[in-house]
């Protein structure tokens, strides 16, 4: 059952591995640090940076809860409070949830599909720098008191030129451009990795479900994010050069913004949610010790959720006064998305029924999902009903709902998955004891914080208010929510202590510490720079379980960064391809692009002059090197054929 492929000829294989290690190594020094293209390095950076933003966003939430602990409190003034909830929402959505899911995809997907590298590694590096610079841009602006204050949805005309004074709305809109650009390039890389970089024999129906979830998510990013980039660009144009996209007095329409924003905004929720469903399937499979039940059904659920997610954006706009027939359509569509979600839950319950649970921390998070996400999903059914939505829309009921969905449906599986993949990412094991403590605190704190908010919403408390009067029955519930917030903060601190402790003192991880079935566990923890040698051939699902002595590929060069390109559906050998080497140019191009983006909120000329450094960066990036052309797989042969 050992997942570590035992070398048949130790000495020859060891020599090859040493040579491969040198070939795939990053450049040393700080230049090398900026030039890194290893997907595991970039993935770790994505995850770490996103979690840093998560901590910052969480701090803002604590401040908001303190302000709302008592009625008519003047701890935080209206201006700061409006910045707080705008920054909290924008940070959590754009700088935490999406990037952390992408980061895990970048780090894990190539390993799970048995590839030596991610497709377009330089593009992924560029995507990281754009994400980092966009996030820093937003937070430095906030520190300079020009943080956005119109909500993470930035509705016009409040954010338009007439009412959004200063540069605050521009900072928000341009942060969107940064993060969405990053999202688009990463999505492209993940799609190509999944379609073309899979190990030979890993046909689409043998692919791990987490890879499926990342594939569907990446596809959704490609379709959803351009909508919001168009919207935010139109907003900047309205503000900077007086176009009238959203100005009703000149034939524009404020509702156009809402349609564009929610055409992105609703799929966005599923962009955060679907990778977590992949994690759920992964965790449940590993910790029940049996292949997941209903593989095809689970994959189809992911795909159909991805499609239906684009047909429900109008349920964010039920109060705007749309024709009733249209509202009914979107009610039905919004409710129907519960079917694939339900199907997944039922398959997981069947899996648990068929397997035997190992009570490890990641599995606790997976089990908590059933309680927490279920509540959020069911209140989601309520919000989909147009009549009911008219009352609870924009109240604390909605705040409760989407925290149950996003924390229950995404953060719980994510925290479980981070605990699960931590040994693969770092080579160390997290402490189970601290893990259980953090989990327990989070579960109790979360419910204490957000459950009372349902009741607050029913009692009429609207969202986005910096204070509220006494005497409406809201005081006690708000105080309770604030107390729960403290517990949640404690949980996150415990988790962080666990990580720091594990990195210093944690036990070294074996290749497959959880006895899991997917390919990332078939290589060392942490994996070598080249991921796999020899490259494995896949003959079934969960091949670490089903195929303990896999056949392998020979003939890939050890002196060059060769990866194997396979066909989209059946993953038969196609050709060898040389993966790009480390390069400083993605970093330089990202800096040039950032200067263009930031400059263009002040003057349209920044687009003209700023494009010159970007062009220089791209020329450097794509300067023809010694890289060889794609090669036929004559050299790469599946060993079995030779034998």
């Amino acid at each position, binding site marked *: 059952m050992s997942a570590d492929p035992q070398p048949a000829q130790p000495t020859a294989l060891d020599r090859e591995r040493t040579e491969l290690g040198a070939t795939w190594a990053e450049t040393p020094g700080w230049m090398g640090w900026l030039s890194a293209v290893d997907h595991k390095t970039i993935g770790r950076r994505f995850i770490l940076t996103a979690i840093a933003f998560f901590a910052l966003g969480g701090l803002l939430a604590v401040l908001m809860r303190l302000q709302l602990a008592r009625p008519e409190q003047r701890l935080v003034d209206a201006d700061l409070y409006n910045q707080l909830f705008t920054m909290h929402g924008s940070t959590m959505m754009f700088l935490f949830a999406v990037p952390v899911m992408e980061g895990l995809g970048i780090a894990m997907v190539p390993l799970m599909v048995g590839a030596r590298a991610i497709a377009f590694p330089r593009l992924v590096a560029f995507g990281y720098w754009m994400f980092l610079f966009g996030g820093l841009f937003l937070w430095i602006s906030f520190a300079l008191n020009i943080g956005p204050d119109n909500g993470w949805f930035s509705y016009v005309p409040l954010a338009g030129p007439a009412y959004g004074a200063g540069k605050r709305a521009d900072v928000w809109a341009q942060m969107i451009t940064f993060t969405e650009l990053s999202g688009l390039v990463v999505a492209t890389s993940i799609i190509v990795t999944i379609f073309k970089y899979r190990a030979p024999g890993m046909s689409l129906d043998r692919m791990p479900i987490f890879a499926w979830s990342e594939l569907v998510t990446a596809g959704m990013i490609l379709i959803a994010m351009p909508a919001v980039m168009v919207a935010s660009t139109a907003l900047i144009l309205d503000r900077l050069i007086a176009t009238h996209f959203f100005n009703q007095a000149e034939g524009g329409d404020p509702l156009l913004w809402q349609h564009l924003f929610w055409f992105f905004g609703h799929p966005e929720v599923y962009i955060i949610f679907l990778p977590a469903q992949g994690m759920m399937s992964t965790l449940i499979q590993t910790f029940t010790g049996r292949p997941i039940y209903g593989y095809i059904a689970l994959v189809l659920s992911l795909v159909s959720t991805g499609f239906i997610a684009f047909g429900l954006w109008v349920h964010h706009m039920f109060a*705007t*006064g749309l024709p009733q027939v249209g509202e009914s359509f979107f009610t039905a569509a919004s409710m129907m998305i519960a079917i694939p979600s339900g199907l997944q839950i*039922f398959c997981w*319950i069947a899996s648990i029924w068929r397997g035997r649970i190992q009570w490890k921390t990641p599995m606790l998070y997976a089990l908590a999902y*059933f309680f927490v996400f279920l509540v959020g999903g069911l209140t989601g059914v309520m919000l989909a009903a147009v009549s009911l939505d008219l009352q609870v829309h*924009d109240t604390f009921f909605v705040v409760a709902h989407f925290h149950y969905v996003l924390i229950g449906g995404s953060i719980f599986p994510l925290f479980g998955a981070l605990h699960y993949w931590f040994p693969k990412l770092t080579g160390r094991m997290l402490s189970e004891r601290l893990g259980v403590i953090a989990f327990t605190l989070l579960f109790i704190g979360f419910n204490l914080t957000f459950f009372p908010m349902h009741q607050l919403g029913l009692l009429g408390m609207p969202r986005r208010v910096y204070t509220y009067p006494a005497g409406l029955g809201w005081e006690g519930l708000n105080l309770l929510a604030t107390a729960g917030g403290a517990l949640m903060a404690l949980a996150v601190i415990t988790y962080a202590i666990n990580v720091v402790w594990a990195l210093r003192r944690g036990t070294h991880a074996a290749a497959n510490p959880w006895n899991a079935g997917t390919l990332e566990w078939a290589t060392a923890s942490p994996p070598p720079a080249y991921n796999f040698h020899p490259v494995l051939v896949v003959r079934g699902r969960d091949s670490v379980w089903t195929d303990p002595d896999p056949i392998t590929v020979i003939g890939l060069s050890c002196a060059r960064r060769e990866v194997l390109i396979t066909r989209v559906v059946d993953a038969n050998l196609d050709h060898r391809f040389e993966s790009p080497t480390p390069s400083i140019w993605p970093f330089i191009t990202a800096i040039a692009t950032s200067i263009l983006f930031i400059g263009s909120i002040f003057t349209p000329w920044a687009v003209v002059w700023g494009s010159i450094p970007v062009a220089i960066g791209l020329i450097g990036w794509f300067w023809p090197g010694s890289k060889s052309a794609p090669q036929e797989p004559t050299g790469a042969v599946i060993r079995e054929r030779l034998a």
Partner: protein
Amino acid sequence: MNMQSMLAPAGLQAAAIERLWWIFLIVTSLVFVAVIVALVAAIVRRNRDGGPSDRAAFRGVAAAVIATAVTLIGLITVDAFTARKLASLETDDRMVVNITGRQWWWDIEYQHPLPSMRVRTANELRLPVGRVVQINLQSADVIHSFWVPALHGKRDVIPGHANEIWLKADTPGRYRGQCAEFCGLQHAHMALTVIVEPQDKFAEWIAAQRQLGPSDASEQAARGRQIVERGPCSTCHTVRGTDAGGRVGPDLTHVSARQTIAAGTLPTSRENLRKWIDNPQHVKPGVRMPALGLSRDDIDAVVAYLGGTQ
């Protein structure tokens, strides 16, 4: 306590939505319990009988999916009937009120075929019990949302879009509404008082509202009127029957008869009016009304004039 609760309905539509809420709550609670029971059973049973056959698992999952679909179709149907009920009020025999959302208050105008019979007020909507009311919603600036939970759900107030909402209040009483779409700095202080009263009391009230401005009988009130007309007040405010005719801020003709000032921020009293005029920015930071720098005496005179007999 329950002035702003959707669970304490006082109108036809709010009652219909409340009923829908209980239906949804019961159905979804049953679903929650069923799923959790299945999960716990799955964890426990495995250890006893070694898990299900593929066939049993398939049957279980398929049955659950079908049950989900049926439940959802049921809920969609109940919702559709409720939506029809919400839209059932429209009739020619109705009272028309125009409400304009402004940062951060509600400008209210009772319509009448005769312009002189129209009544303009702010932040306090009086409705006769049992009467169908058509409210035309407009925005003077950004998007707001009109929401009185005791009567109905929300209707957004969007610049350039003529929205309307139809209401019928069935129970006399005092209710609270609040802007429900984030509209800027003082979104939190954009409340609306709704007073539902018997037809005759409402008729009395609206007749009183049609009277011209407050009395300036006393010497102090007369001086107050002078300050209002010639000072900064008239730039923004109207007091009907006087030279003050500004349209930017709330109509002050009967401000003392309203229960709150500054869109629900403070209860109306002479003391609070004084506090407000002295420094509105302290009471409601960011409000469009500036501190006017009036002397103590001038403020007292203005309050004596506008503050009525309270």
